[in-house]
């Protein structure tokens, strides 16, 4: 034990550390190449789109209050409602929201001073607002109405200029995602300080690495398909038109070759968040750290072999069984993560913080989504429920119960680092209860109506399903309302929340070993990561955490228990 302690920020006086202020509002409104500013820009932009997408969802539920067409003026208007809802939630909320956390947290966790390509980083972000505007402009012509999956011929022969704008917007978002992902890969592989070996990387970094590899390899397929779609729409080619020598299934194949991997773009970072939050808030090492890192990579690879499970009803019959098998295989690395999380919290000193609650919420919901996924992978079952509300239920359990819950967990967890203020835990718990129950009661009954035969994407349904739909709509309004609790909490805590200090959760990963918010160069000196990012429960870990406390907050060392 002979190493000399060099407290972080060794040369700094208390005044210097306190001088770290939050960036002024104006810095967020202009071009900035600081990854922390860009992270917040991504986050706030995505949040705005989340609100728009959520409002559209409320519209869907209003229409489905009765079995007749009443709230919307026409079936086409209803089509555009769910099309824009899905598109906004996926392309303008979940995917960019992960870029928000990736940007803010990953360089800090690595101990890097910025991303590898700061300029490119800003460029990738600034593609998003115009892309969103282009998509929304559809409302002024004739909005897209072919669903987020945009199958031809609906998206080519039977829809208006809004569909063209939709494709252009999606194209820009794809470009943004590719450029952002290249930046993440290079940052994670090349920008680590020497002590941060690949096997010391926090699991969020592993997850973002896997996600980015998927995005770089899969998104170009979307770009290619959208290019052909635009050509079909604008120049009279017939790539997707069977009557003109083209192939309608071509779109389905390419789209899902992108979009199945893309569902992992949407959820892998959330799984990374889970490993962080569960370990820190239950004071226990991540169970099977290496397996979790590797399972992200396995998911990234196997994710490319399952796309046609979305096409069981349109595929050549011989190919169905092979895709059923690959799809079931992908549940294995997902299961590894599930068991790792369980093993992590097992016997831990669980603190039911809001972040932890949402992480536990993720676990309970995602397991349901995973099980319904395997059910859908079973061909005989899928033929029966394909294109019904059962599928809607499945993907909301993984995307809302999974990704969105993880986004909330990450918000409560990193808000103190981002803003320097704690969020209100009481409001956080209230938010959790409303979201959890609202979500469960909205989406669980959809399994049942789906199995009873209610098709998805229709405004008019069999009156026999009315009671179910009323229940679902009511719960959905509660769920929508719950969003305002967190919005209020964000606003209030930003101004009045208690000062967070450097390391409010007593965590070991490097983003906590600097001030909150961190200075423009992230760290005053080159930080040295603790030997194990999740090595809680040892004397050495406690000593490391106390050293952080003393370096930044000049706090008296907390009475040491094992941390």
């Amino acid at each position: 034990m002979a190493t000399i302690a060099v407290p972080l920020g060794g040369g700094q006086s208390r005044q210097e550390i306190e001088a770290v202020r939050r960036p002024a509002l104006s810095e967020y409104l202009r071009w900035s190449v600081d990854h922390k500013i860009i992270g917040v820009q991504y986050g706030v932009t995505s949040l705005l789109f989340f609100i728009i997408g959520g409002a559209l969802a409320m519209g869907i539920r209003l229409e489905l209050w009765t079995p007749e067409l009443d709230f919307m003026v026409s079936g086409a208007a209803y089509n555009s409602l769910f099309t824009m809802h899905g598109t906004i939630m996926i392309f303008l909320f979940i995917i960019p929201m992960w870029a928000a956390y990736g940007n803010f947290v990953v360089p800090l966790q690595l101990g890097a001073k910025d991303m590898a390509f700061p300029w490119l980083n800003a460029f990738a972000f600034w593609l998003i607002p115009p892309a969103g505007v282009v998509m929304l402009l559809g409302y002024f012509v004739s909005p897209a109405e072919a669903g987020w999956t945009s199958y031809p011929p609906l998206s080519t022969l039977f829809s208006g200029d809004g569909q063209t704008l939709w494709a252009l917007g999606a194209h820009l978002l794809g470009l943004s995602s590719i450029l952002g992902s290249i930046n993440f890969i290079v940052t994670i592989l090349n920008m680590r300080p020497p002590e941060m070996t690949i096997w010391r990387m926090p699991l969020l970094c592993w997850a973002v690495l896997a996600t980015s590899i998927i995005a770089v390899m899969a998104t170009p397929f979307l770009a290619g398909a959208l290019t052909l779609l635009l050509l079909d729409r604008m120049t009279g080619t017939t790539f997707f038109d069977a009557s003109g020598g083209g192939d309608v299934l071509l779109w389905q194949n390419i789209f899902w070759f992108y979009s199945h991997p893309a569902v992992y773009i949407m959820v892998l970072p959330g799984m990374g968040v889970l490993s962080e939050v569960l370990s820190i808030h239950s004071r226990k090492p991540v169970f099977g750290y290496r397996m979790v890192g590797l399972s992200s990579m396995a998911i990234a690879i196997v994710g490319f072999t399952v796309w046609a499970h979305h096409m069981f009803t349109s595929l050549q019959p011989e190919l169905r069984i092979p895709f059923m098998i690959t799809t079931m295989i992908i549940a294995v690395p997902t299961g590894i993560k599930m068991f790792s999380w369980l093993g992590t919290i097992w016997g831990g000193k669980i603190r039911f913080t809001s972040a932890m609650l949402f992480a536990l919420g993720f676990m309970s919901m995602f397991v349901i989504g995973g099980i319904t996924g395997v059910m859908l992978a079973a061909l005989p079952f899928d033929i029966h429920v394909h294109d019904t509300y059962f599928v809607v239920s499945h993907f909301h359990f993984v995307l809302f119960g999974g990704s969105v819950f993880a986004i909330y967990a990450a918000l409560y967890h990193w808000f103190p680092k981002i803003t320097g203020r704690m969020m209100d835990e009481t409001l956080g718990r209230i938010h959790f209860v409303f979201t959890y129950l609202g979500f469960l009661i909205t989406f669980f009954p959809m399994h049942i109506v789906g199995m009873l035969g209610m098709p998805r994407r229709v405004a008019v349904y069999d009156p026999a399903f009315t009671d179910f739909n009323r229940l679902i709509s009511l719960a959905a309004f509660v769920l929508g309302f719950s969003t305002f609790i967190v919005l209020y909490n964000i606003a209030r805590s930003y101004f009045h929340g208690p000062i967070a200090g450097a390391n409010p959760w007593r965590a070991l990963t490097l983003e906590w070993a600097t001030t909150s918010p961190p200075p423009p160069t992230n760290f005053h000196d080159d930080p040295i990561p603790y030997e194990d990012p999740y090595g809680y429960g040892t004397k050495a870990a406690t000593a490391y955490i106390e050293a952080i406390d003393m370096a930044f907050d000049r706090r008296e060392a907390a009475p040491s228990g094992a941390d």
Partner: protein
Amino acid sequence: MAEMTATQLSAPAHDDHGHMSAEEHNENMKLGMWLYLASEIVIFSMMIVGYVLFRINEPDVVELAHSKLGVGLVTANTFVLLASSFFMVMGLRAMQQGNRQGMLRWIGATALGGAVFLAGQYIEYSELAHLGITLGYDIESQWQTFGMRFYAPTFFHGAHVFVGVLWALEVMRRGAKGRYDQNPIGIEMFGLYWHFVDVVWIMLFTLIYLV
């Protein structure tokens, strides 16, 4: 504190805050460029596969096109593009030897090669249009969907050549100001791109014109 703990949190910064070394920077640029090219390969392969399937399913149409078109012009064009790749290498070498003027000449020749290629492509497109091969589908036409399957990859490639020519000019502009005297990574990046565009063309040339 007399009693120091064994915990070391940080070491004094060993480089300028926020600045990476030139080698680190170069490594990042190269990895980033490779990743970008990987994503380009995906888009090109989709279009190439689209063509190949047509080639397999409709051999008559493609053979007719071959017989009408000949390979003279396109072979010459391919040569020009290959040569420009060679000029590119020479340009980088010149800069690595500290010969800025030589670099400017070679990169200039590269840009010229790209421009000649585009002119050749333009001539060929006009000939094809003359034969009635159009991008849009025409039910009357004997060419079926040959037009879109041919134009999509070749035009997409041509657009890449066009971007490459602009990039070469930009490299010359910056190079003339001495930007690459110390670190020619910017030329190397352009080189990677240009070779990539070249290799894609070899693929297209072989698949579309030769087989």
